[in-house]
């Protein structure tokens, strides 16, 4: 069992690590996260002078450098901002901070490298256990919860059929998420459900979607764009076959991949799909009565305006 009372209070004010994707292609995720935080009375304090989590090429050169980069973000949150909880909405950032925490706990060599580089860079070394990294789903689930959302949203998403797509990094590898798979109230690594729970509480109808943690092909985008497009097309077609009108996302890489390859699938393979994509924070924002523009929905490539009007969500 998970102690939800402690978390509900603890997570009301968190260090916010938006990461680089949310400053660029995933900006709608950032805008909508901040908008719902304001609406729900939750405090987000940006991590001071944050840096890349090391999600991209650096890990292929030296995984310990990746651990250091993530540890520096955690160090700044702890030592410069006085935080004990860091919330990262991006699956890549979330995954890497969790991985750094795991490495620093279990690998003396990683700790040695991080100590050395932190000293050289002139900042305090992050020590495992000084902060807790959470995802935006953990944050809303613990602070507001389903009942809180039910009261605030009054079922505004009723009639909206949603396929919840988590992608692969939110739950893998299992060993870096020791808080998951702990029974009632905890997230599952094999059948994640936090996004399903939150959107259902706002009135949405979650469809039975079999590819909710399947690969979006993000890693193949540059080496073999056709494979990425086919993987995405399959996800989009499966969502449509499941009856979904919109795919809810919680990862900027997956979201952008779904949007871009939806366009490419039509151009390259003549396969048109019409299912929309929105970040779960955008859907929750609509359910809370926030206008689409304030949620950055107009910045998505996937144009959901007609659907929003049809469902009377604006």
């Amino acid at each position: 069992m998970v102690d939800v009372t402690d978390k509900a209070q603890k997570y009301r004010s968190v260090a916010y690590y938006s990461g680089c994707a949310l400053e660029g292609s995933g900006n709608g995720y950032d805008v909508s996260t901040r908008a719902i935080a304001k609406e729900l009375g939750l405090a987000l304090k940006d991590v001071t002078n944050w840096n890349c989590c090391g999600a991209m090429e650096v890990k292929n050169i030296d995984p310990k450098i990746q651990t250091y980069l993530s540890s520096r973000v955690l160090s700044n949150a702890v030592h410069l901002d006085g935080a004990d909880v860091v919330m990262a909405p991006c699956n890549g950032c979330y995954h890497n901070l969790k991985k750094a925490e795991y490495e620093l706990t279990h690998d003396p060599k990683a700790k040695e490298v991080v100590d050395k580089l932190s000293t050289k860079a002139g900042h305090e070394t992050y020590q495992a256990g000084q902060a807790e990294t959470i995802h935006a789903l953990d944050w809303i689930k613990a602070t507001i919860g389903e009942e809180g959302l039910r009261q605030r949203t009054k079922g505004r998403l009723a009639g909206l059929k949603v396929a919840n797509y988590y992608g692969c990094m939110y739950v893998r590898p299992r060993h870096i998420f020791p808080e998951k798979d702990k029974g009632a109230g905890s997230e599952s690594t094999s059948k994640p459900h936090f996004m399903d729970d939150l959107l259902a509480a706002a009135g949405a109808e979650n469809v039975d979607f079999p590819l909710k943690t399947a690969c979006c092909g993000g890693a193949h985008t540059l080496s073999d764009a056709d494979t990425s497009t086919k993987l995405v097309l399959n996800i989009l077609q499966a969502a449509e076959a499941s009856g979904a009108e919109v795919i809810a996302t919680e990862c900027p890489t997956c979201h952008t991949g779904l949007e871009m390859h939806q366009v490419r699938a039509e151009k390259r393979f003549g396969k048109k799909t019409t299912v929309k994509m929105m970040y779960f924070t955008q859907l929750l924002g609509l359910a809370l009565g926030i206008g689409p523009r304030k949620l950055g929905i107009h910045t998505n490539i996937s144009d959901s305006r007609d659907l929003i009007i049809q469902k009377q969500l604006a």
Partner: protein
Amino acid sequence: MTLGSEIHLQPAAVPPASRFAAIETRIDAIGSGTEPDAAPRAVAELLQLGEEILEIWVCARGQEPTYDTKEGFRLLALHRQGARGEPSFNACRETARELVYHYNLVLSEPAHPETSRRLQLTAMVAKHLCLFVSGKMQVAGLGEFCCAAKPLRGGGE
């Protein structure tokens, strides 16, 4: 479409890219052209195609594909074998499990009104496994995948 005679494994001598292409074509055919009363045999073929996909991966890594089962399914044992020493292969673990789940779903209620849709979704899950593993093999440099071999994959850009 007739079913049953199609359940066959392609010879291992056939290059992986050609095998994946053939499997993908077969999966698409099952997903779009199966009558509901043929669903049990079709879903069995999809499961077998899933095993063949994982066998290609295992063989390409120089191993003998297992005939053990995990939780009653060879597919899951093959996945576990394929992920040994390659943690990123776990990105298709849930896809393999979904294939098993949908196989059970179709077989447990073959007369269900949703059977056609369930079979279609099973085919999409199997196709995802195929696309993921073929992409993985290319990234890993296994098989004959390379830029020069791209035409084998259906005329890549």
